[in-house]
């Protein structure tokens, strides 16, 4: 519904349930006699009676004209408001109207009351009734006897868990989490290459269970995932068990209550659980990426419902993953990584960095297959207890990664197909150099990771001498490159 035009002259908005409005009734009578006055009443259609009022029954006039206080007196010229005053201040009303004896005998000042159109119990409903027209998505009626959550399952819009029905009210509220316009295109979503507007992403965020303050993170994740570099399309189409993994960092993660501590990679935190899920619902419902269709994963992994966690960047001895990838450590950022489910590394006895690095290297080498190298990246997530071993020894991020690379270089003859009585492995002709090993050992050995293929993140509970490896999908041009983006609010 469009904004109702106010009649020229003076317009007063009042309600009976406000003592100040009752106080100014004689003033309204005086104004009605001397000027063109139109009175709108928000509650009782018979108030004030004299002068007669128009009942703003659906509060359209009040809502569209941003009435926050009653009484409000507005001057309207040629259908346009030129000025307004609210509450009762005798001197101001007299100047405003040019009537010198206006409200003679009344107290000089009475504060106004809250407009019914800003009543907290009504405000969401009014936003839908009068502001819902900003939403462009198709409206779908849920038949009387139908359960909307069941209906969303039936239509194929769920990832297998119940989704929150995206009502206009909920979507409008979600959109309050960003300053971006609802019709702004966020990204073109694979595999169907459909433009996703801020509104459509907000719908997915509602369905995933997000709060409005998570929306900027979801929008950033969608932007980071839907581009050629990250290659979300390939990630869907692969038979490997990978999905988009979101690593969030910056002070904003704490503002929205993300978990970077105990069970950071697990369940139970609303922001962690829903931000990653919202991205996957965008891919499913807007992009059309559904398992068994374009998504060809042989096994998948439970993280494909949504895999998102925060780094404890404020406590990290080696900065953030976003920092490693070129942003400032204190920037709110999202890194999206094509990853599998995490696997734990146990080492409860290493007291020296060398010993712990040896353990981590062995487990990283085993990722996917110990004889397959340079094809996959990984994120190593350390918590306080393992990270402390390195920090105490003065190893910073670069040193840790360097030392791991040193331990992750394997003689070629151990990797070649057939070696160790295992058919899987590197083709023999790789020794002649097409993998271009960048180690000092020359072509007789190969590193597990390409030079920037091993990333560190910092998260986890204070007790537990464990780390977690998130193995990646095929890297580089044919696969996926991690993408890091600063959060746009």
């Amino acid at each position, binding site marked *: 519904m469009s904004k109702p035009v106010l009649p020229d002259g003076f317009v007063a908005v009042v309600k009976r349930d406000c003592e100040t409005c009752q106080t100014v009734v004689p003033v309204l009578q005086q104004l009605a006699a001397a000027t063109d006055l139109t009175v709108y009443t928000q509650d009782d259609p018979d108030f004030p009676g004299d002068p007669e009022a128009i009942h703003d029954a659906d509060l359209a006039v009040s809502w569209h004209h941003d009435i926050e206080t009653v009484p409000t007196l507005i001057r309207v010229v040629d259908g346009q408001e030129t000025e307004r005053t609210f509450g009762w201040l005798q001197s101001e009303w007299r100047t405003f109207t040019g009537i010198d004896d206006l409200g003679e005998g009344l107290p000089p000042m009475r504060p106004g009351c809250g407009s019914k159109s800003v009543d907290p119990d009504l405000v969401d409903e009014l936003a839908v009734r009068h502001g819902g027209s900003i939403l462009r998505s198709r409206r*779908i*009626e*849920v038949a009387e006897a139908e359960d909307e959550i069941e209906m969303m399952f039936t239509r194929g819009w769920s990832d297998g868990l119940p989704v929150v029905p995206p009502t206009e009210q909920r979507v409008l509220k979600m959109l309050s989490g960003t300053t971006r316009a609802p019709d702004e295109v966020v990204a073109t979503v694979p595999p*169907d290459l459909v*433009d996703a507007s801020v509104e459509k992403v907000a719908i997915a965020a509602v369905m995933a269970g997000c709060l409005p303050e998570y929306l900027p993170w979801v929008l950033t994740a969608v932007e980071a995932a839907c581009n050629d570099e990250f290659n979300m399309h390939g990630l869907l189409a692969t038979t490997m068990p990978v999905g988009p993994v979101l690593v969030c960092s910056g002070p904003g993660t704490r503002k929205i209550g993300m978990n970077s501590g105990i069970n950071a990679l697990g369940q139970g935190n609303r922001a962690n659980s829903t931000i990653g899920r919202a991205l996957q619902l965008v891919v499913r419902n*807007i992009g059309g990426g559904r398992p068994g269709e374009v998504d060809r994963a042989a096994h998948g992994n439970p993280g494909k419902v949504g895999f998102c966690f925060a780094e404890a960047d404020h406590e990290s001895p080696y900065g953030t993953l976003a920092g490693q990838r070129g942003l400032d450590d204190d920037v709110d950022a999202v890194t999206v990584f094509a990853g599998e489910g995490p696997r734990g590394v146990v080492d409860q006895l290493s007291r020296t960095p060398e010993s712990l690095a040896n353990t981590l290297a062995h487990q990283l080498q085993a990722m996917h297959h110990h004889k397959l190298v340079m094809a996959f990246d990984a994120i190593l997530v350390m918590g306080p207890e393992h990270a402390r071993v390195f920090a105490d020894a003065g190893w910073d991020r670069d040193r840790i990664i360097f030392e791991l690379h040193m331990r992750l270089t394997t003689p070629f003859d151990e990797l070649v197909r057939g070696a160790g009585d295992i058919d899987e492995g590197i083709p023999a002709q790789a020794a002649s150099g097409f993998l271009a090993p960048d180690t000092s050992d020359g072509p007789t050995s190969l590193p597990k990771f390409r030079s920037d293929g091993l990333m560190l993140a910092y998260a986890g509970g204070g007790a537990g001498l464990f780390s977690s490896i998130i193995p990646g999908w095929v890297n580089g041009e044919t696969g996926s490159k991690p993408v890091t983006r600063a959060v746009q609010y």
Partner: protein
Amino acid sequence: MSTRTILDPTGEQSVAERARLARPASLEGLTVGLLDISKPRGNVFLDRIEERLVGIGASVKRYKKPTFAKPAPVDLRHEIATECQVVIEALAD
């Protein structure tokens, strides 16, 4: 609860059917736009339609799009939408 209407979460690639707009009771006193698609002889047809419309109390505004081969330019569509209450487009063959 106002959860009985929900917003479509999909990319809306499949076309949804829509219904005709509500029609006025009569054309009397309304401004009717005649949009000539620029095919030969269409103007004669529209001239007659104009006469008949005026005869039943409508006022008529004439528009012509540059070519029948393409949709009317957005400015023209906007102009018609702001100036007319009803529109008649003719004459395709």
